[in-house]
């Protein structure tokens, strides 16, 4: 690795901690970001000559703060009557040492930094864009590419989101236990949103959006290192790793989605699966179940099956049952119906999803799954109607192509039947 590559990696990894601490000092996101940028510029000059500091984050915090304070002081000098020197108490020479020793701040600094991106008034896409910009430090160009929008549009989106965040008064005091737990769960949901933004991409855009999955996993690991005993954060990490482990097998050469049953399992990433399984193991010991852990356990049962026939569908059905109780939602029931179709057959599965029709009337997957069950039952005409509806609702060309494949199979079957008569 070259010098610059090493420094870039170190800067990226220190960023959440450094920006989080600078935000605590200056209580202003723009000032904090600018201070961090300035510190990075100095690092790029100083580190190749003097070697990397022992604690990169502490170095960046100290340098960033000093540069920003100098700037503030210069601005002051141009104003008449500089009254109270609010920054004087930050000047003592001990602060550097104190900063290094006081690791307990870091946890709440980083959590706060993630949390301010989750402002409830921000739509999900803005939360994600903001987190990627502020916490991960991706460039606007990189984020724009992942969201498939122009750089100018993304720039505007982020600026707007930042303005919203600035208006919201996020508490800078050290949070209490209850507040910390709430922040943690909101932040976990946001990280999973980032992951899904990448994971739900079609084959044509999967490569451009894969960095979103990787970034979500990086943030998940960061959160787990800060909150080591939280089983749901272990579950979230396991879930993301187990899903992302299948990335190389999820699309064929034409970019069409390959169903789990048809994936080449030798392309699954064994290392990510091992890590995901190890995290579930750790989480289970706490005996405090939660939605991420259950979804991770379901993903683990798929990951453990070397061939589709070895999948433990009975257990998956039970886990979905538990998830339904915890987080009742028609989508969860729809997912469960696939397991039910494997355990009890397509008729039982179809009966299970019929009541969902009003709620999922515009949901692509509902019609895809319904069509598949109908096809298994030989009700081809009804299956065709469901598949047509699914194509009309498809979110990407890959989804539509996938359903067309089913339709082609239906046509072949019908033709075979006619010629067989």
């Amino acid at each position: 690795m070259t010098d610059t590559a090493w420094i870039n990696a170190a800067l990226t990894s220190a960023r959440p901690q450094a920006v989080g601490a600078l935000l605590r000092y200056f209580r202003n996101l723009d000032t904090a970001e600018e201070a961090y940028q300035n510190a990075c510029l100095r690092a790029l000059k100083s580190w190749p000559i003097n070697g990397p500091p022992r604690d990169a984050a502490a170095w960046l915090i100290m340098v960033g703060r000093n540069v920003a304070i100098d700037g503030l002081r210069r601005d002051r000098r141009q104003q008449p009557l500089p009254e109270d020197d609010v920054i004087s108490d930050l000047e003592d020479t001990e602060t550097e040492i104190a900063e290094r020793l006081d690791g307990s701040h870091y946890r709440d600094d980083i959590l706060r930094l993630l949390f301010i991106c989750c402002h409830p008034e921000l739509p999900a896409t803005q939360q994600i864009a903001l987190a990627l910009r502020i916490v991960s430090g991706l460039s606007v160009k990189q984020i724009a590419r992942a969201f498939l929008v122009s750089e100018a549009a993304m720039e505007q989106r982020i600026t707007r989101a930042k303005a919203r965040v600035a208006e919201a008064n996020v508490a800078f005091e050290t949070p209490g236990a209850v507040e910390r737990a709430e922040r943690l769960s909101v932040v976990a949901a946001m990280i999973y949103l980032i992951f899904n933004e990448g994971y739900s991409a079609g084959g044509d855009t999967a490569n451009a959006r894969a960095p979103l999955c990787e970034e979500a996993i990086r943030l998940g690991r960061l959160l787990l290192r800060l909150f080591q005993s939280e089983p749901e954060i272990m579950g979230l990490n396991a879930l993301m790793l187990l899903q992302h482990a299948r990335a190389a097998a999820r699309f064929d050469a034409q970019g069409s989605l390959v169903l789990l049953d048809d994936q080449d399992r030798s392309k699954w990433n064994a290392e990510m699966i091992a890590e995901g399984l190890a995290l579930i193991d750790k989480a289970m010991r706490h005996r405090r179940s939660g939605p991420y852990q259950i979804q991770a356990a379901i993903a683990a049962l798929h990951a453990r099956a070397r061939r589709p026939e070895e999948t433990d569908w009975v257990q998956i059905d039970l886990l979905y049952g538990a998830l339904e109780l915890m987080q009742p939602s028609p989508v969860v029931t729809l997912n469960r119906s696939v397991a039910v179709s494997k355990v009890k057959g397509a008729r039982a599965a179809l009966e299970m999803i019929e009541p969902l029709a009003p709620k999922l009337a515009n949901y692509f997957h509902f019609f895809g799954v319904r069509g598949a069950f109908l096809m298994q039952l030989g009700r081809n005409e009804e299956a065709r109607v469901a598949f047509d509806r699914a194509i009309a609702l498809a979110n990407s060309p890959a989804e539509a192509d996938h359903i067309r494949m089913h339709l082609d199979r239906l046509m072949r079957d019908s033709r075979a039947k006619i010629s067989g008569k």
Partner: protein
Amino acid sequence: MLYAILCYHDEDVVGSWNKEHDAEIMNKLAVVQDKLRQQGRLGPVARLLPTTAATTLRKSDPPLVIDGPYAETKEQLLGFYIIDCKDLDEALNVARDLGDANPGGAYEIRPVNVLFPGSIKA
């Protein structure tokens, strides 16, 4: 004399390597390892999963299980085991047995990602 070489690095930095860079490093390491292996001088080599997958058993009375890696600085690394277990609970039970035999200190239990057996004759 047998020597153990213990590998330390910033896992954030290593974790941020892309697949190509990771493979490049592993290939370079393999060249060094292969030479030693052919000479019958290479013992087992392991690459561990990240510290987020670690669990620590404090050998107090009773032993205390803590999530995360061993993080104190008052004890020093004195040895290690590689054991084959079906899950974390089984590994923790082995660690408890070892702790009964030798109380005090701690064991960090970390899943092994890859293990190369090596070529030293016992």
